[in-house]
Protein backbone atom coordinates (compact mmCIF):
# COMPACT_ATOMS: atom_id res chain seq x y z
CA UNK A 1 0.00 0.00 0.00
CA UNK A 2 1.37 3.38 -0.96
CA UNK A 3 1.84 5.64 2.06
CA UNK A 4 1.69 9.44 1.84
CA UNK A 5 5.47 9.47 2.06
CA UNK A 6 5.76 6.97 -0.83
CA UNK A 7 3.51 9.16 -2.96
CA UNK A 8 5.62 12.23 -2.19
CA UNK A 9 8.81 10.43 -3.14
CA UNK A 10 7.25 9.11 -6.36
CA UNK A 11 6.06 12.57 -7.40
CA UNK A 12 9.37 14.11 -6.45
CA UNK A 13 11.47 11.60 -8.34
CA UNK A 14 9.20 11.47 -11.35
CA UNK A 15 10.31 15.08 -11.96
CA UNK A 16 13.70 13.64 -12.88
CA UNK A 17 12.09 11.41 -15.49
CA UNK A 18 10.06 14.19 -17.09
CA UNK A 19 11.69 15.37 -20.24
CA UNK A 20 13.53 12.08 -20.64
CA UNK A 21 10.63 9.75 -21.39
CA UNK A 22 12.00 8.73 -24.77
CA UNK A 23 15.60 8.19 -23.60
CA UNK A 24 14.71 6.41 -20.37
CA UNK A 25 11.87 4.49 -22.00
CA UNK A 26 13.99 3.15 -24.82
CA UNK A 27 16.75 2.24 -22.37
CA UNK A 28 14.28 0.31 -20.21
CA UNK A 29 13.09 -1.66 -23.22
CA UNK A 30 16.58 -2.26 -24.57
CA UNK A 31 17.74 -3.60 -21.22
CA UNK A 32 14.65 -5.79 -20.97
CA UNK A 33 15.14 -7.32 -24.44
CA UNK A 34 18.81 -7.98 -23.75
CA UNK A 35 18.41 -9.36 -20.24
CA UNK A 36 15.16 -11.28 -20.75
CA UNK A 37 15.13 -12.42 -24.38
CA UNK A 38 11.77 -14.13 -23.86
CA UNK A 39 10.17 -10.67 -23.76
CA UNK A 40 11.07 -10.22 -27.41
CA UNK A 41 8.39 -12.75 -28.29
CA UNK A 42 5.81 -10.01 -27.84
CA UNK A 43 7.49 -7.81 -30.46
CA UNK A 44 8.00 -9.91 -33.58
CA UNK A 45 6.85 -6.93 -35.62
CA UNK A 46 9.48 -4.56 -34.21
CA UNK A 47 12.97 -3.69 -35.32
CA UNK A 48 14.74 -4.42 -32.05
CA UNK A 49 18.13 -3.04 -32.94
CA UNK A 50 19.73 -0.55 -30.60
CA UNK A 51 18.24 2.89 -31.12
CA UNK A 52 15.47 1.80 -33.49
CA UNK A 53 12.63 4.28 -34.03
CA UNK A 54 10.13 1.69 -32.87
CA UNK A 55 11.93 1.12 -29.57
CA UNK A 56 12.27 4.86 -28.99
CA UNK A 57 8.65 5.54 -29.71
CA UNK A 58 7.37 2.57 -27.73
CA UNK A 59 9.65 3.40 -24.81
CA UNK A 60 8.25 6.93 -24.78
CA UNK A 61 4.71 5.55 -24.88
CA UNK A 62 5.35 3.22 -21.92
CA UNK A 63 6.92 5.96 -19.81
CA UNK A 64 4.14 8.39 -20.64
CA UNK A 65 1.63 5.81 -19.47
CA UNK A 66 3.57 5.39 -16.23
CA UNK A 67 3.61 9.18 -15.92
CA UNK A 68 -0.19 9.20 -16.13
CA UNK A 69 -0.28 6.55 -13.44
CA UNK A 70 1.96 8.73 -11.25
CA UNK A 71 -0.60 11.51 -11.58
CA UNK A 72 -3.38 9.17 -10.45
CA UNK A 73 -1.86 7.26 -7.56
CA UNK A 74 -5.14 7.26 -5.69
CA UNK A 75 -7.04 5.77 -8.55
CA UNK A 76 -4.84 3.50 -10.62
CA UNK A 77 -7.74 1.26 -11.66
CA UNK A 78 -9.49 4.08 -13.41
CA UNK A 79 -6.37 5.73 -14.84
CA UNK A 80 -5.13 2.42 -16.27
CA UNK A 81 -8.50 0.98 -17.24
CA UNK A 82 -7.99 1.09 -21.00
CA UNK A 83 -4.45 -0.24 -20.78
CA UNK A 84 -5.75 -2.95 -18.49
CA UNK A 85 -8.25 -3.98 -21.18
CA UNK A 86 -5.55 -3.88 -23.82
CA UNK A 87 -3.20 -6.15 -21.86
CA UNK A 88 -5.94 -8.56 -20.89
CA UNK A 89 -7.77 -8.96 -24.18
CA UNK A 90 -5.32 -8.01 -26.93
CA UNK A 91 -1.73 -8.22 -25.80
CA UNK A 92 -2.21 -11.06 -23.32
CA UNK A 93 1.32 -10.76 -21.97
CA UNK A 94 1.85 -13.75 -19.68
CA UNK A 95 0.77 -12.61 -16.22
CA UNK A 96 2.20 -15.37 -14.05
CA UNK A 97 5.82 -14.45 -14.24
CA UNK A 98 4.54 -11.16 -15.53
CA UNK A 99 6.77 -9.68 -18.13
CA UNK A 100 5.83 -6.47 -16.39
CA UNK A 101 7.92 -7.54 -13.40
CA UNK A 102 10.83 -7.88 -15.77
CA UNK A 103 10.10 -4.44 -17.21
CA UNK A 104 9.90 -3.18 -13.62
CA UNK A 105 13.35 -4.52 -12.80
CA UNK A 106 14.79 -2.74 -15.84
CA UNK A 107 13.00 0.44 -14.86
CA UNK A 108 14.69 0.31 -11.44
CA UNK A 109 18.06 -0.25 -13.10
CA UNK A 110 17.59 2.71 -15.44
CA UNK A 111 16.62 5.01 -12.58
CA UNK A 112 19.45 3.71 -10.37
CA UNK A 113 22.06 4.06 -13.11
CA UNK A 114 20.99 7.64 -13.82
CA UNK A 115 20.39 8.78 -10.24
CA UNK A 116 23.20 6.90 -8.49
CA UNK A 117 23.03 7.24 -4.74
CA UNK A 118 20.00 9.55 -5.02
CA UNK A 119 18.12 6.34 -5.78
CA UNK A 120 17.96 5.70 -2.06
CA UNK A 121 16.40 2.60 -0.48
CA UNK A 122 13.29 4.66 0.34
CA UNK A 123 12.84 5.83 -3.26
CA UNK A 124 13.56 2.32 -4.53
CA UNK A 125 10.93 0.89 -2.17
CA UNK A 126 8.32 3.50 -3.15
CA UNK A 127 8.82 2.83 -6.87
CA UNK A 128 8.78 -0.91 -6.34
CA UNK A 129 5.42 -0.65 -4.62
CA UNK A 130 4.15 1.63 -7.38
CA UNK A 131 5.29 -0.69 -10.19
CA UNK A 132 3.74 -3.70 -8.44
CA UNK A 133 0.45 -1.83 -8.14
CA UNK A 134 0.58 -0.91 -11.84
CA UNK A 135 1.33 -4.51 -12.84
CA UNK A 136 -1.51 -5.81 -10.65
CA UNK A 137 -3.92 -3.29 -12.16
CA UNK A 138 -2.90 -4.24 -15.69
CA UNK A 139 -3.47 -7.91 -14.85
CA UNK A 140 -6.85 -7.32 -13.19
CA UNK A 141 -9.05 -8.28 -16.10
CA UNK A 142 -7.16 -11.33 -17.33
CA UNK A 143 -9.84 -13.68 -16.09
Amino acid at each position, binding site marked *: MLTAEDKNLIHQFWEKVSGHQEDFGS*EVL*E*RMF*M*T*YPQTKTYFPHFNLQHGSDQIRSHGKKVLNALGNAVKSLDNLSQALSELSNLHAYNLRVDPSHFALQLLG*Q*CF*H*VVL*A*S*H*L*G*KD*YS*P*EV*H*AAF*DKFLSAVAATLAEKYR
Partner: protein
Amino acid sequence: MVHWSAEEKQLIATVWGKVNVEECGAEALARLLIVYPWTQRFFDNFGNLSSPTAIIGNPKVRAHGKKVLTSFGEAVKNLENLKATYAKLSELHCEKLHVDPENFRLLGDILIIVLAAHFTKDFTPACQATWQKLVGVVAHALAYKYH
Protein backbone atom coordinates in the same frame (compact mmCIF):
# COMPACT_ATOMS: atom_id res chain seq x y z
CA MET B 1 26.07 -26.71 -16.95
CA VAL B 2 25.92 -23.00 -17.68
CA HIS B 3 27.98 -21.67 -20.55
CA TRP B 4 29.79 -18.36 -20.14
CA SER B 5 31.15 -16.51 -23.16
CA ALA B 6 34.49 -14.77 -22.97
CA GLU B 7 32.66 -11.45 -22.99
CA GLU B 8 30.44 -12.46 -20.09
CA LYS B 9 33.43 -13.62 -18.04
CA GLN B 10 35.11 -10.32 -18.73
CA LEU B 11 32.06 -8.30 -17.69
CA ILE B 12 31.76 -10.31 -14.48
CA ALA B 13 35.44 -9.97 -13.58
CA THR B 14 35.61 -6.26 -14.40
CA VAL B 15 32.60 -5.35 -12.30
CA TRP B 16 33.55 -7.64 -9.43
CA GLY B 17 37.05 -6.19 -9.37
CA LYS B 18 35.60 -2.80 -8.50
CA VAL B 19 33.00 -3.91 -5.96
CA ASN B 20 33.50 -2.98 -2.33
CA VAL B 21 32.13 -6.22 -0.91
CA GLU B 22 31.43 -4.80 2.55
CA GLU B 23 29.57 -1.71 1.31
CA CYS B 24 27.66 -3.40 -1.50
CA GLY B 25 26.77 -6.39 0.63
CA ALA B 26 25.48 -4.22 3.46
CA GLU B 27 23.48 -2.09 1.05
CA ALA B 28 21.97 -5.04 -0.79
CA LEU B 29 20.81 -6.74 2.39
CA ALA B 30 19.49 -3.46 3.83
CA ARG B 31 17.51 -2.79 0.66
CA LEU B 32 16.09 -6.33 0.74
CA LEU B 33 14.81 -5.75 4.27
CA ILE B 34 13.48 -2.29 3.38
CA VAL B 35 11.89 -2.94 -0.02
CA TYR B 36 10.54 -6.38 0.93
CA PRO B 37 9.90 -6.07 4.66
CA TRP B 38 8.55 -9.61 4.97
CA THR B 39 12.13 -10.82 4.51
CA GLN B 40 12.79 -9.53 8.02
CA ARG B 41 11.18 -12.76 9.19
CA PHE B 42 14.57 -14.46 8.94
CA PHE B 43 16.31 -11.93 11.14
CA ASP B 44 14.37 -11.76 14.42
CA ASN B 45 17.60 -11.61 16.40
CA PHE B 46 19.04 -8.66 14.50
CA GLY B 47 17.63 -6.01 16.82
CA ASN B 48 16.24 -2.75 15.52
CA LEU B 49 14.77 -3.09 11.99
CA SER B 50 11.97 -0.61 12.60
CA SER B 51 12.80 1.94 9.88
CA PRO B 52 15.01 2.32 6.79
CA THR B 53 17.43 4.40 8.87
CA ALA B 54 17.55 1.76 11.60
CA ILE B 55 18.10 -1.00 9.05
CA ILE B 56 20.85 0.84 7.18
CA GLY B 57 22.67 1.62 10.43
CA ASN B 58 22.19 -1.82 12.00
CA PRO B 59 25.63 -3.42 12.54
CA LYS B 60 24.25 -6.97 12.25
CA VAL B 61 22.72 -6.12 8.88
CA ARG B 62 26.03 -4.72 7.68
CA ALA B 63 27.99 -7.72 8.93
CA HIS B 64 25.61 -10.23 7.46
CA GLY B 65 25.43 -8.36 4.17
CA LYS B 66 29.19 -8.52 3.93
CA LYS B 67 29.10 -12.27 4.67
CA VAL B 68 26.51 -12.91 1.98
CA LEU B 69 28.31 -10.94 -0.70
CA THR B 70 31.66 -12.49 0.24
CA SER B 71 30.06 -15.84 -0.41
CA PHE B 72 28.82 -14.53 -3.74
CA GLY B 73 32.49 -13.98 -4.57
CA GLU B 74 32.85 -17.77 -4.59
CA ALA B 75 30.47 -17.86 -7.54
CA VAL B 76 32.64 -15.40 -9.44
CA LYS B 77 35.65 -17.67 -8.85
CA ASN B 78 33.79 -20.87 -9.75
CA LEU B 79 31.59 -20.00 -12.69
CA GLU B 80 31.98 -23.47 -14.19
CA ASN B 81 30.99 -25.28 -11.03
CA LEU B 82 28.27 -23.42 -9.18
CA LYS B 83 26.16 -26.34 -8.03
CA ALA B 84 29.09 -27.96 -6.26
CA THR B 85 30.27 -24.63 -4.87
CA TYR B 86 26.90 -23.96 -3.24
CA ALA B 87 25.88 -27.53 -2.31
CA LYS B 88 26.49 -27.11 1.40
CA LEU B 89 24.96 -23.64 1.56
CA SER B 90 21.94 -24.95 -0.30
CA GLU B 91 21.42 -27.68 2.26
CA LEU B 92 21.86 -25.14 5.05
CA HIS B 93 19.27 -22.76 3.61
CA CYS B 94 16.82 -25.62 3.22
CA GLU B 95 17.32 -27.70 6.33
CA LYS B 96 18.35 -25.18 8.97
CA LEU B 97 17.37 -21.72 7.76
CA HIS B 98 14.13 -22.70 5.96
CA VAL B 99 14.43 -19.92 3.41
CA ASP B 100 12.03 -19.92 0.46
CA PRO B 101 14.27 -19.84 -2.66
CA GLU B 102 12.16 -17.00 -4.03
CA ASN B 103 14.17 -14.83 -1.63
CA PHE B 104 17.38 -15.63 -3.55
CA ARG B 105 15.77 -14.17 -6.65
CA LEU B 106 14.69 -11.06 -4.76
CA LEU B 107 18.17 -10.50 -3.34
CA GLY B 108 19.73 -11.08 -6.75
CA ASP B 109 17.53 -8.41 -8.35
CA ILE B 110 18.35 -6.01 -5.54
CA LEU B 111 22.07 -6.62 -5.99
CA ILE B 112 21.71 -5.63 -9.64
CA ILE B 113 20.04 -2.35 -8.64
CA VAL B 114 22.79 -1.64 -6.08
CA LEU B 115 25.41 -2.23 -8.78
CA ALA B 116 23.51 0.06 -11.16
CA ALA B 117 23.37 2.86 -8.59
CA HIS B 118 27.05 2.39 -7.87
CA PHE B 119 28.39 2.13 -11.42
CA THR B 120 25.74 4.39 -13.07
CA LYS B 121 26.24 4.58 -16.82
CA ASP B 122 29.10 2.05 -16.72
CA PHE B 123 26.47 -0.53 -15.78
CA THR B 124 25.58 -1.00 -19.43
CA PRO B 125 22.73 -3.17 -20.74
CA ALA B 126 25.30 -5.88 -21.56
CA CYS B 127 26.60 -5.69 -17.99
CA GLN B 128 23.11 -5.97 -16.60
CA ALA B 129 22.23 -8.92 -18.83
CA THR B 130 25.37 -10.82 -17.77
CA TRP B 131 24.92 -10.08 -14.09
CA GLN B 132 21.22 -10.97 -14.11
CA LYS B 133 22.25 -14.28 -15.64
CA LEU B 134 24.82 -14.73 -12.87
CA VAL B 135 22.45 -13.95 -10.00
CA GLY B 136 19.92 -16.25 -11.62
CA VAL B 137 22.29 -19.21 -11.76
CA VAL B 138 23.53 -18.56 -8.21
CA ALA B 139 19.91 -18.55 -7.02
CA HIS B 140 19.35 -21.80 -8.91
CA ALA B 141 22.44 -23.40 -7.35
CA LEU B 142 21.33 -22.32 -3.88
CA ALA B 143 17.94 -23.90 -4.43
CA TYR B 144 19.34 -27.05 -5.99
CA LYS B 145 19.64 -29.17 -2.86
CA TYR B 146 16.20 -28.31 -1.55
CA HIS B 147 14.01 -31.27 -0.73
